C-alpha cells in the first residue's frame, strides 16, 4: 500500500505566502520568521528571549493576521492572577448559575509578554494550558483556540523582580528564539516607513485557520530515515555525556527535535527529513533545555555558551550521507 503522499510543494507554496507576508513587516529576520513558521507547523510554542523593542509583538501579530487567527496580548506582571489569564466563573443573575468568562488565553496566538515577571502560580496556569490545549475551571474543561500558539517573551538582561521559569517549564517551549538587532539597511527601511502600532500595520490573511490545521496534520507524516533518526539520537545522547551541561536533553526534548525537524523539512518543501534539517533545528530546540555547569553573567551569555557547545557537538558528529 502506498503511503499518504504529502503535497509538499503545495505546503511550501502556502507557507511561502505566509513568510512573504510577515517579512513585509519584519525586515531582515528571515531565519527568525522561518523558525516561527516551524513552530506554527509543529503546533509548538515559542520562547522569545531578547531585549524589548525589537519587534517580537509585531512578529506575533503579523503571523496571527497572516493566518487569519485571533491574537491576544497579555502583559505579565507580578500581581497578575491565573484567572486574569484563563478567565473566571461569575454568577449570572439572569441564568442563576456560574458562567465561565473566558480570559485572553482563549485565542489562537497569545503573546505572553515578559512571562518571567509573573508569579510561578500564574506561569504554571499558562503552561498547563500550553501543554494540554485545554483548561479546567470549576470542574469544567474548556478548549483553547485551534490552532493555539503562545509567544512568550523574556527580557534576558533585566532580572530584577522576576521569577525565572524552572527547567521543567522551559521544556514546554518547542523553540527558543532571539530577534536580535536589525542590520543597518533594514533599520533604515523601518525608520523610513515611520512609526506605526503593530496593530495598525496592514497585513492581509493569506491562509485560513483550517488550512493551517491541515498543514499541521502533515507534519507527523514527514518521513524520517533510520540513519537520520540515529543521527538525531546521537546528538541528544551527546548532550547527556557532555561535561559542560548539568543535565542532558530529556526524551521530550528529542521528540521536540524530531517534530521541529519534520516541520522544517515540510517548510522546505520536502516530505522527509535531511540531516541538515536536524542540525538547523538543534540550537533553537535544545539550547533552552540545557543548563551550564559554570555560571554565566546573564541569560543571553548562558544561551550563547550552550549554543557554542551544541555547535561543537554538531561539528563532532558526522552527518549520515
Amino acid at each position: 500500500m502506498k503511503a499518504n503522499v504529502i503535497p509538499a510543494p503545495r505546503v511550501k507554496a502556502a507557507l511561502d505566502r505566509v513568510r512573504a507576508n510577515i517579512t513585509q513587516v519584519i525586515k531582515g529576520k528571515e531565519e527568525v520568521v522561518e523558525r516561527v513558521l516551524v513552530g506554527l507547523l509543529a503546533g509548538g510554542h515559542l520562547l522569545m528571549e531578547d531585549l524589548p523593542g525589537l519587534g517580537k509583538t509585531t512578529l506575533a501579530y503579523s503571523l496571527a493576521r497572516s493566518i487569519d487567527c485571533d491574537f491576544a496580548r497579555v502583559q505579565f506582571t507580578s500581581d497578575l492572577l491565573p484567572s486574569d489569564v484563563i478567565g473566571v466563573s461569575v454568577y449570572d443573575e439572569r441564568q442563576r448559575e456560574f458562567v465561565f468568562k473566558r480570559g485572553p488565553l482563549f485565542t489562537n496566538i497569545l503573546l505572553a509578554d515578559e512571562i518571567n515577571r509573573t508569579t510561578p502560580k500564574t506561569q504554571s496556569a499558562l503552561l498547563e494550558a500550553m501543554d494540554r490545549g485545554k483548561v479546567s475551571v470549576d470542574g469544567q474543561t474548556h478548549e483553547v483556540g485551534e490552532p493555539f500558539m503562545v509567544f512568550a517573551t523574556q527580557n534576558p538582561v533585566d532580572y530584577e523582580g522576576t521569577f525565572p521559569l524552572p527547567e521543567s517549564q522551559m521544556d514546554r517551549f518547542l523553540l527558543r528564539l532571539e530577534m536580535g538587532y536589525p542590520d543597518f539597511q533594514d533599520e533604515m527601511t523601518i525608520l523610513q516607513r515611520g512609526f506605526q502600532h503593530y496593530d495598525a500595520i496592514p497585513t492581509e490573511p493569506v491562509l485560513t485557520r483550517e488550512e493551517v490545521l491541515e498543514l499541521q496534520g502533515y507534519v507527523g507524516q514527514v518521513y524520517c530515515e533510520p540513519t537520520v533518526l540515529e543521527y538525531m539520537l546521537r546528538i541528544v545522547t551527546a548532550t547527556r555525556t557532555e561535561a559542560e551541561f548539568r543535565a542532558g536533553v530529556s526524551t521530550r526534548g528529542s521528540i521536540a527535535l524530531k517534530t521541529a525537524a519534520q516541520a522544517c523539512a515540510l517548510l522546505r518543501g520536502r516530505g522527509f527529513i535531511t540531516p541538515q534539517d536536524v542540525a538547523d533545528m538543534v540550537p533553537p530546540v535544545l539550547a533552552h533545555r540545557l543548563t551550564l555547569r559554570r555560571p554565566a553573567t546573564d541569560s543571553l551569555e548562558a544561551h550563547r555558551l550552550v549554543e557554542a557547545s551544541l555547535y561543537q557537538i554538531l561539528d563532532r558528529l558526522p552527518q549520515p550521507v
Partner: protein
Amino acid sequence: MSTANPQAKLEYRFLQQLKWLLGGLMALISLVGVFSLGIGAGPVVALGMVCISIGLVWPRLVRRIPSWVWKAATPILIILIVTDFVLAAGDILSPLVRMIMLLTILRALQERRRREDLQLLLLSLFLVIVTGVLTMELTFALQLLLYTPVALFQLFTINLSENYVDEQEGDPEHWQLFRWRPLGGFLRQILHPRMLGLSTLLFFGLAGMASLIFISLPRFDFGQQLPFARLSTSSGAPGLSEEVTYGDVVDLLDDDTMALRVDVGSDIPPSSPYWRMLVLDEFTGEGFRASRSLQSTFRYDELTRFSAEGSYRNRDRGEGQTWTFYFEGGISRYLPIPGSFHELRLQNEMTLAYSYPGRTLRTQETQNNVLFYRLEGLDPTARVIPAMRRESEWLQQLLKNGGELQTEDPGYPATTLELPADAGARAALQRWVAEIEQGQALGPNTFISRATAFLQRDRGYSMQVQIPDADWTENRICRWVQAGMAGHCELYAGALILLAREAGIPARMVTGFAGGDWNAYEQYMMVRNRHAHAWVEFFDPEAGWVRADPTPARVLPGDNQQQSEQNGRESVIDDTLNAYLDSLRVLWYRRVVSFDRSQQQEMLKELRESMGQWGPHLRERLNAWMQSVRGWWSEGLSWGKLGRLAAKLAITLVIWLGLRLLWQAWRRRQNNKPGRLHPDRRRAGVWLRRLEAFNAADPDERGRVKAQLLLIRYGDMEQWPERKTVFRQARRLKPAKRSTV
C-alpha cells in the same frame, strides 16, 4: 550501535593512538632484522622489543614512568654509545647499528610528538635498510613488505594530525583517555568491506607494479653501492681455514646450520658431490695446514668473472653444467668448488684469489653475507684434478730422487711428501706400508685402494675418539692406527696421507663439504655445516691429483640412509618442513637477490615465446569454432537440430535466470539486514557528496537532480523516483565552463 556507513569523525585522540600504535609497530619490525646481524645485541633487542610491546598494549604504563627516567636516559645513552665506539676499535658498523638500535628503542618507548615520530620513522628505516643490505635475508623482504605500508600510514597520520593545531600535543588527558577499545570501535566504523577490498586491490596492484618495475629495470646491486655493506666481515668457521688440527672439522659435524645452497640446473640430485674448499699440504705434527709456499700461489684480482685457463677441461662453453652457488656468510673465505670448471662468474666485481696448484678460490676476507657465484662448464663428477705441468715435473723429479727432501724448507709441492720426524712414527709407517705392499711394487691407485682397505679393516666411524697414549711415538695418527679403533674423517685422511707419503706417493688433505640434502620443493642442494668433511688427494703421475676418501660410511644425524663412501656421498632427499622454509629463502635468492641481467633477458625471452605461442593457438581455436558453425549451418536445418538448439538455449536461460534469482535473493537479504543502508541510498549519498563541490553548467538541473537524490537518500522508499533515471541524470550533469579570465 551499528551505523550504515557514516562518515566517522576523526578525533585527535584517535590520531594520537594510531601514531603510537604505528610507531611501535615500525620499531618492532625494524628491530627484528638486528637478530640476524650477529652483532651481539640479541638480548638487548629482545628486551627492547618486549618493552615496546608492553608499551603498545598498555600505553598508560609509559605515562607512569617518572620524567627523571627519561631525562637520565639521554646522558646514559650517550655514555654507552661513546664507550661502544671506543671499545669497537675501528669497527664502525657494529657500534653504529647498536646506536641506532638503542635510539629506536628509546624513541619507541617515549611519549612522542611530531618531531619524535619523524625521528622514529627515520631511525627504524635506517635499521631496516642496514640490516637488510647486510644480510640480504628473506626477512628483509618481509620487513619491507610490512614496514612500507605501516610507515606510509604513519606519515599520513602525522600529516593529518597537523590539522589539529589547536589540540595540545602530549596533553595528559590524551594519555588518560588512551584506550584501544574506542579506537577499535572507530576503526570498525570506518572499515567498510568495499574499502577493504579496494585497499587489498591497491596493495596487490602496487606490489604487481613494483614487481614489474623490478623485472624491467636495468640491474644494479645496491648492496655493493652502500659503503657499510663492505664493512662487515667475519672470521669464519675453524676447520675450513688454512690450518686444521684434529677435531676442527669434526666440531662442525654437530652444526646443522646451512652452509651452502646450490642450484644445479636440473631436477636430478647430483650423485657424488665433493665440495672442495681448501688444500692442506704441510704436516705439522698436530694436523695439516696450507704451507706458506702454497698460500703464496694465491693471486688476488678484482674481477667479476674468472676463467681457469691452463689444464682445465670444459673450455668449450657448450660442455659441462652450470651451477649457481649461494654460499652463506661467516663460514669460510674459501669458496666450495665441486670439480673442474670453465668459468666462474660473480654477481659483482670483487677481490678474488685463485691458486692454480691447489685449484682453490678464496676471497680477501670471510664474507658476512651470502656470496653468489656461478660455475659454468662444470664437471662435478671429476675425481681427478689435473696437476700443473711444472708441479708434475717437479714431483716426478722428486720421486726419482727416492722421495728424499733436499732442503730444510722444501715448499710446495715437496710438502706433499713430508713425513713426521718422529723415528717411532716413521718405523710404524714403514711397517704398515710393508704390510700393505706385501713385497709388491704397487702403482699409486692400487696402493691407495689397499691402504684404504687396510685402514678400514675392523674399524668403523666414530666422532668420539680417545687415542691411547703410547711411549713409542707422540704422533696421534700413528697411535690411532696402531690402536685399531674407530675414527673420523680427519684421522682416516691423515693416516692415508702419511701411508701414501711413506710409500712415496705425494698426497695432500682437502677439506670442504661432502654430500648434501636435496631440497624436494625447489630442487637444489642444501649443504649444511654437518656435511663438513676431509679427504685425500694423491698424485698419480699419469693423471694428476686423484681424490680418495678413506673414511668409512657413517650415519649422519638427520639422514635417512647410510652414506656410501665408495660412490661418493649421496644426496639425501629432504622434504621436511625445514626444507620447505629453506626453499623460500632460495626463491628469494633466485628471484630477487641474484636476479641479474641474464635472468632478466631469459625471462623476457620466455615471455615473448609464450606470447608468440598464444596468438596462433587462439587463432587456431577460433578457426575451428568458425568451421564447426559453418558446418552446422551448411548441413541445413532440421527439427532435430532446432530442438537441440532450443534445448541448449532453454538450459542457458534457466541457468541464467536461476543465477539472477539467487543474486537478487542474496542482495535482498543483505539489504534487509538491520542497520544496513540500502545500496541505492548509499549510491545517492555518494552522488550527493559529489554534487556538493560540483559546479554545474545548469544550476536548475543540478537543483532538480539534487532534490531527487535527497529523496532517494533520505526519503520514504515508497515515494522513490525511478532511481536509474536519477543516477543517469546525475551522471550526465555537465560542469560549468571555466572562466578564461
